[in-house]
């Protein structure tokens, strides 16, 4: 039965059909044939080359055809093509664009040059030394048909013009002596000759798609020029939803494209982390969980109260899976609390051609529900037409070092009650406490039972962690002929974490093939196989199994190396503290065993059938499948859990998408271009997990699941499906005004059958002011854009409609309980309906002063309604959480991108790009009677992250010391301790303000890129400092160590209060500070020197024999320095989970500084 939101969809489909087909198609066809009937005399020029019975068409029209067929853009001087005709038979060929272009252009003696992937510049191939007369694009080139001989000349200069990037000669470059009509163009190899007057002058080099250069010449005879591609060009093409390429001018919304090279040199293992600071409005954070860890990316603020806030990842038009097997780490979950890596971390940066970030709803509307948080579109590299096999080799070696060290106190050493340990028992008892006597260099008995000098051990972190290494090698082969092109790459990433014995290895094979089976049928296929192996990923959060505790919290006069290798002759843990819940880190790295293997396959095939030249159908199937096996052994001999524990996870995840689209292009009433698309998509998602856990190895040290006292295996089988139909209509008028309308209807399997579908439309438009009006001269380009879009969404979790009951597997008597999700009872919601995210955005894109200065400004307003909220509730309800369908969340913001080229000379250029985004987030509404929901808590509930009505997403909630009107601390006269307030809002865990500044310098063969980024306005609650206070590491725990701490304040009835805390009661007093979360709250703002790339382009002409096309070597660095921060003891980005619980620091692996070298060679 048809269940869709019928009236709206039907109307939409009708508009789509009526609006395009009958009128548009017929008229276009008429126009096309009319324009082929040209006067005979115009045909003469081409007739000699190819005479057949067929008709002729203007060259302009022919290029228009190719433009749509191959998604290309052509640039040429106004008038260059006028009057030129070609045979339509050329257009009936099905060839690679280069071949077709050559065929079409050569009869008119025209040449072409690819400026970038999609842009082609066409120029006259007329004999060197003469200007083509038609040009009026170049103001210096006004008079016609002046030959060089007519100008007074006395010196001849020559030189070569090359293009920056590939270094190859650039043909067709216009060269004019400024202020005169003297000029020439370069030949096919980029060489030129020009005669100029004795006194010299300024030569202007111009070429479409490249920045114009002016060079003063006096007594030089050779002038070599490197043309720099224009960073912004009028016809920039970007990849948009479903892999559709569109002119940037046509977009009613903001899209940012980042080229693959930006990820391949200074690389992050997880490519998503490399987006940090690059794009306005994209808040990317790499987690502090070692190589192979996950990322968290938030685009334009958190749009869902508790659901997934990360964007959808799409490779070559089809979604991929980005789940973290077994879920994200939490604050408090023992040794299995590790980050097992997300889906995007499996993509090899070297395979990426470009990444487009679709920030708004309009951009993403065609992707449907999961695109509500934006889309990250990855286009992988493809094969290209070339002679022989192209080989690319890319190698990077980098090293990691701990970047931030805590600023502990080193005045008082290990011990209790102001005394240093005098026996091993006392030292063990105070193994992690620095409440001892003044550090004086005298002898003391340490926890290893030996006598050591009582001196500060400041290097425990340095001594425990290694230098991490990352070595990546990628080899890629490309090639192709007219019928088939391919790219095949092999890559290996081998990482050793700073944590000893923790490694990560990723092997990737990627094959991309495209070909044409006949004149009308094209196929494309991509296959990627990943093999990821990780060992001993570090856990975060609570102490059990967390190797990061001891380096931070070993008493400050103990050297961590005294406790290496962490085990005794019997294989049992050697402890450094009687609080054995805090493990010896050496025991963990040497004896704990954590292994995981991920086998992942991503396959895509597409077949396109061209029913007509302007109508095609396309079917695409993609499947992203992975199989993950994880094993975690808590070994025999662990002091806290002596008989050990075992955990294993076996996960099979598959995301399958089948898509069918129909694409039609036409033109009507001369100036209107129309593209219509209709399609359907079926998505199936499957998550199967077997979770095995067991305790107590029967035979010690034999780690098999068969050797456990207790085991249990719990299956988890989740299946979801979304079916969709969608359509879009793109129209443009004269390349000045653009309009896009889309609509999509989704059906979700996870929602109530009564409300499982939603239709949502979008509309966007843009207007090229600079084309329509005569703007002041300084304006090169001005575009206004605006869009409005809705995206519907559903809960990603199945089975949350009805309450169900599950058996306890393996019990000796039948036991049934309310079904638990991740160990919690969840109140299901039988009426679950789709949520809606509505985005409105307007923007302006301006370029001034010969495109030396650019401004891209966007305002957006995004609102999520009927949000599906899974919130913790009081356990006294009988349940731990509930799924509600009522939330409303608003994000409003401004994004600014400023680009500039302060210096542009032939051998030196300096480009600056600055992006800044401010996002104002507000929780507008929760459920009736609910004004706050809880998303996360720290271990022991020192603080919470709540969503509170009227406040931004992610408010950190905790307590403060009570103060009177004058700011005096209020003391409880009975306990002598400061009175604790109730829970209060302490700050926002998500930075509203983010920015990035890129400076790129290029001098001859050298280039230097520097990225500085910052995030501002958020708070971080440090769990590490709560412990550091209690254990006597914080400098704030120093007052009173000699003579006691004098307290002054008032009592609750306002009377003056004072007392002195005795030295032996100090730990008790300071430990109580855990009750006041405000003491451990810090401003999380920072500015970091995020990335430096210094590249030398090796002059490959010297290696002609090796057939090297290009080669470069770079020094690369990531996270090199923190230029500004307000946290003394940790990196403000010290995140340990990519879940919604942002705003806590919780003793994760320290963050690192990363630097090394990159080598790129192309054969």
């Amino acid at each position, binding site marked *: 039965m048809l*269940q869709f939101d019928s009236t709206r969809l039907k109307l939409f489909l009708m508009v789509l059909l009526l609006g395009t087909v009958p009128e548009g198609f017929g008229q276009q066809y008429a126009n096309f044939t009319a324009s082929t009937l040209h006067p005979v005399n115009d045909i003469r020029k081409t007739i000699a080359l190819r005479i057949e019975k067929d008709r002729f068409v203007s060259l302009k029209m022919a290029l228009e055809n190719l433009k749509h067929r191959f998604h290309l853009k052509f640039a040429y001087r106004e008038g260059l093509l006028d009057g030129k005709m070609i045979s339509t038979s050329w257009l009936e060929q099905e060839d690679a664009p280069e071949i077709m272009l050559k065929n079409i252009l050569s009869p008119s003696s025209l040449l072409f040059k690819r400026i970038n992937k999609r842009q082609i510049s066409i120029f006259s191939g007329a004999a060197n030394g003469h200007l083509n007369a038609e040009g009026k694009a170049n103001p210096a080139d006004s008079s016609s048909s002046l030959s060089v001989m007519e100008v007074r000349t006395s010196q001849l200069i020559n030189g070569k013009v090359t293009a920056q990037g590939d270094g190859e000669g650039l043909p067709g470059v216009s060269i004019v002596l400024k202020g005169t009509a003297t000029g020439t163009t370069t030949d096919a190899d980029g060489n030129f000759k020009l005669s100029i007057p004795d006194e010299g002058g300024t030569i202007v080099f111009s070429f479409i798609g490249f920045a114009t250069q002016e060079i003063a010449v006096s007594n030089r005879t050779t002038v070599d020029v490197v043309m720099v591609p224009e960073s912004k060009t009028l016809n920039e093409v970007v990849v948009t939803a479903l892999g559709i390429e569109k002119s940037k001018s046509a977009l009613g919304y903001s899209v940012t494209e980042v080229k693959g090279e930006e990820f391949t040199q200074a690389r992050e293992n997880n490519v998503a982390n490399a987006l940090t600071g690059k794009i306005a409005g994209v808040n990317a954070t790499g987690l502090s969980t070692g190589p192979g860890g996950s990322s968290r990316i938030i685009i334009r603020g958190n749009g869902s109260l508790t659901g997934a806030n990360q964007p959808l990842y799409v490779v070559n038009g089809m979604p991929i899976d980005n789940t973290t097997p077994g879920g994200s780490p939490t604050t408090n979950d023992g040794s299995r609390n590790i980050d097992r890596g997300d889906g995007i971390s499996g993509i090899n940066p070297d395979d990426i051609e470009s990444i487009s970030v679709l920030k708004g709803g309009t951009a993403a509307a065609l992707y449907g529900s999961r695109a509500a948080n934006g889309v990250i579109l990855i286009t992988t590299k493809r094969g290209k037409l070339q002679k022989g096999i192209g080989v690319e080799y890319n190698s990077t070696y980098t090293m990691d070092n701990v970047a931030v060290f805590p600023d502990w106190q080193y005045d008082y050493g290990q011990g209790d009650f102001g005394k240093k340990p005098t026996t091993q028992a006392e030292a063990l008892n105070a193994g992690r406490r620095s409440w001892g006597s003044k550090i004086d260099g005298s002898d003391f008995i340490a926890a290893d039972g030996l006598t050591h000098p009582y001196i500060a051990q400041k290097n425990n972190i340095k001594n425990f962690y290694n230098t991490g290494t990352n070595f990546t090698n990628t080899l890629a082969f490309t090639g192709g002929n007219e019928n088939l092109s391919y790219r095949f790459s092999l890559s290996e990433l081998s990482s050793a974490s700073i944590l000893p014995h923790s490694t990560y290895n990723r092997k990737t094979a990627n094959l991309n093939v495209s070909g044409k089976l006949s004149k009308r049928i094209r196929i494309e296929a991509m296959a990627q196989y990943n093999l990821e192996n990780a060992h001993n990923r570090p856990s975060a959060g609570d102490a059990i199994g967390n190797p990061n505790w001891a380096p931070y919290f070993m008493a400050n006069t103990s050297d961590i190396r005294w406790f290496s290798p962490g085990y005794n002759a019997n294989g049992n843990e050697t402890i450094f503290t009687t609080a054995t819940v805090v493990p010896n880190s050496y025991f963990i790295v040497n004896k704990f065993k954590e292994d995981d293997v991920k086998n992942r396959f991503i396959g895509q095939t597409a077949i396109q059938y061209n029913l007509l030249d302007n109508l095609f159908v396309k079917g695409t199937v993609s499947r992203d499948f992975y199989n993950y096996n994880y094993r975690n052994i808590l070994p025999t001999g662990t002091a806290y859990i002596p008989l050990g524990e075992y955990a294993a996870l076996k996960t099979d995840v598959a995301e399958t998408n089948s898509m069918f689209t129909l694409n039609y292009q036409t033109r009507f009433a001369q100036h209107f271009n129309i593209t219509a698309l209709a399609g359907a998509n079926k998505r199936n998602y499957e998550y199967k997990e077997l979770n095995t856990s067991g305790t107590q190895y029967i035979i010690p040290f034999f780690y098999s699941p068969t050797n456990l006292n207790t085991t249990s295996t719990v299956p988890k089988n989740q299946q979801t499906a979304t079916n969709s139909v969608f359509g879009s209509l793109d129209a443009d008028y004269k390349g000045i005004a653009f309009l896009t309308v889309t609509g999509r209807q989704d059906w979700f399997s996870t929602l109530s059958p009564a409300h499982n579908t939603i239709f949502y439309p979008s509309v966007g438009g843009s207007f090229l002011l600079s084309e329509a009006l005569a703007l002041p001269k300084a304006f090169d380009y001005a575009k206004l854009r605006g869009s409005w879009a809705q995206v519907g969404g559903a809960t990603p979790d199945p089975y949350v409609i*009805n309450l169900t*009951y599950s058996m306890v597997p393996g019990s000796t008597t039948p036991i*049934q309980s309310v079904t638990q999700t991740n160990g919690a009872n969840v109140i299901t919601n039988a009426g679950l309906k789709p949520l809606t995210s509505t985005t409105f955005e307007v923007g302006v894109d301006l370029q001034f002063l010969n495109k030396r200065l650019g401004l891209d400004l966007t305002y957006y307003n995004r609102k999520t309604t009927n949000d599906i909220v899974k919130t913790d509730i009081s356990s006294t309800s009988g349940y731990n959480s509930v799924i509600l369908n009522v939330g409303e969340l608003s994000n409003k913001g401004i994004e600014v991108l400023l680009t500039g080229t302060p210096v542009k000379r032939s051998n030196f250029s300096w480009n600056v790009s600055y992006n800044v985004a401010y996002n104002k987030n507000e929780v507008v509404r929760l459920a009736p009677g609910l004004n706050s929901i809880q998303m996360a808590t720290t271990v022991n509930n020192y603080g919470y992250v709540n969503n509170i009505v009227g406040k931004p997403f992610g408010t950190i909630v905790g307590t403060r010391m009570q103060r009177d009107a004058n700011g005096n601390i209020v003391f409880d006269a009975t306990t002598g301790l400061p009175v604790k307030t109730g829970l209060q809002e302490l700050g926002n865990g998500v930075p509203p303000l983010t920015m990035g500044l890129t400076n790129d310098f290029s001098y001859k063969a050298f280039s230097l890129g520097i990225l500085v980024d910052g995030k501002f306005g958020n708070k971080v609650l440090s769990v590490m400092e709560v412990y550091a206070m209690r254990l006597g590491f914080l400098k704030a725990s120093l007052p009173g160590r000699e003579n006691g701490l004098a307290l002054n304040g008032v009592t609750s009835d306002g009377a003056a209060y004072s007392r002195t805390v005795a030295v032996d009661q100090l730990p008790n007093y300071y430990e109580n500070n855990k009750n006041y979360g405000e003491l451990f709250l810090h401003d999380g703002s920072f500015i970091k020197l995020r990335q430096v790339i210094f590249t030398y382009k090796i002059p490959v002409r010297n290696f002609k024999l090796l057939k090297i096309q290009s080669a470069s070597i770079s020094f690369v660095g990531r996270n090199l320095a923190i230029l500004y921060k307000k946290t003394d003891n940790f990196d403000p980005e010290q995140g340990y989970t990519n879940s919604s619980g942002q705003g806590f620091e919780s003793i994760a692996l320290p963050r690192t500084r990363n630097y090394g070298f990159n080598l790129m060679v192309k054969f």
Partner: protein
Amino acid sequence: MKNHFQKIIYTVVFFSAATLQSCDKGFEELNTNPDASPKIVPEYVFSKAQYDAVGDMLMGTIGAMQYTTSFNEVGGFGSKYIFLQGTAPSVVFSNAYPKEINEIGEVIRAVSSDPKNVNKLAAARIWRVYCFHRVTDLYGDVPYTAAGMGYVENIFKPPYDAQSDIYTDMLNELDEAARSFDAAQPTFGASDLVYGGNIDQWKKFAYSLMLRLGMRLTKVDIALAETWVKKAIAGSVIKLDADIAMIKYINGGQDINKNPLALSLLGSDYINHDGVSNQEGGKYQKTFIDYLQANKDPRLGVISVVYVNGKADTSAVLQKGMPSNFLTKPADFVTYSEPNQNTVLLKNAPMLLFTNAESNLLLAEAAVKGWYTDETAASLFVNGTGAGLRQWALYGDAGKISPSQISAYVANHPYNSGGSTGEQLEQIHTQFWVALFPNSQEVFSNWRRTGFPVLIPNVVPNNATQGQIFRRMLYPPTEENLNNDEYQKAIARQGANSFMTRIWWDR
């Protein structure tokens, strides 16, 4: 060209129709959890509620009642009143509602509709009282009436009921449920892990709980206490060893099938059974071992061992309790007594929920108060003392105490009928302390009510109670975040959420 046009139209129409037809076909089936049943089996959920309620224990009371101690700061919650961190004091509260209380509510709803299920309903109602009294006795005012109604009534922030109201309702429930059994109707049968569906025993359990809860009111409302105690006695309480309410466990299956106290003690301290490498530094406390030794209690060797050369030794003379004020691991740590692996730490040991010893000792108190005249306090005391020794046989061979040892012990501990009421009660409730070990949670309630045994508080630095034994446990900190309005009302009524605030029946 007309052809082309039609082709497009047809393709679009056909394709849209084909897709839309199947737009949500099979979705309901797809959205059905293959590993879960949409239907409740009340029997199986009742078993779960029984296991969960018994396993939901507060480990801190075993130290607070001076049975055990540790030198370790982290393990110092119970015997040292050091509460450095963690949710240990709120664990019973946090676990009870989503587990046993929700489960028993589901069972009650499932069996209520059919009058034939009257016995199942009665057992479930009694069990619900058992679940709730363990929560309210630790915390005082707690959500009761509206608790566990998250799914059925969408109550996400239940109000806290006053403990006096909770007690009134619990006692009424026991009364009604006990009277509603019908021998002609089916029971939970084997799914009833306590009595296997035996209706008579369930009645005795109900009246015994009524006796326990009625006695709880002696401090706050002596008249009400008398009413309920008399009603309980009239209904007939557990008077035979065979009627002891207990759950048997086995050393197999899943953790839920194993003795939860043994699992917890092994997991925190004694799994290596070598006397040295106790993870949290736990040992028996001096107070307890000294008392057993001084009274030549034959239970000493049953519950306690000392490791000599790595071997467990039960000799009474070797047993030694560790002082509770140690802050570092003593050099002679190995020489202190710890729980016997063959009794207290057996994974297949039973958990005794209501013993013959408890009912006899409570009846002895009733006799002292003049509420019960069928038997004398002296004979009830003797019955209770003997039952307290005999019950260790339920732990297996290592728990068996010979009849001669028992009679000797009973003979050595004659009931002093001539003492003052206070002296008599001290005698009864000190024996109660020994006889109910290791059910420290019930002993903690009994101690708060009677003040016996007289325990000398442990004073160590960093303690959270100014050196006093705590009087209640703490609400979970999350309640302040998730149910703040109701939480604040409870605090306004009962007092601060602190260890020393006294709950209603303790005033």
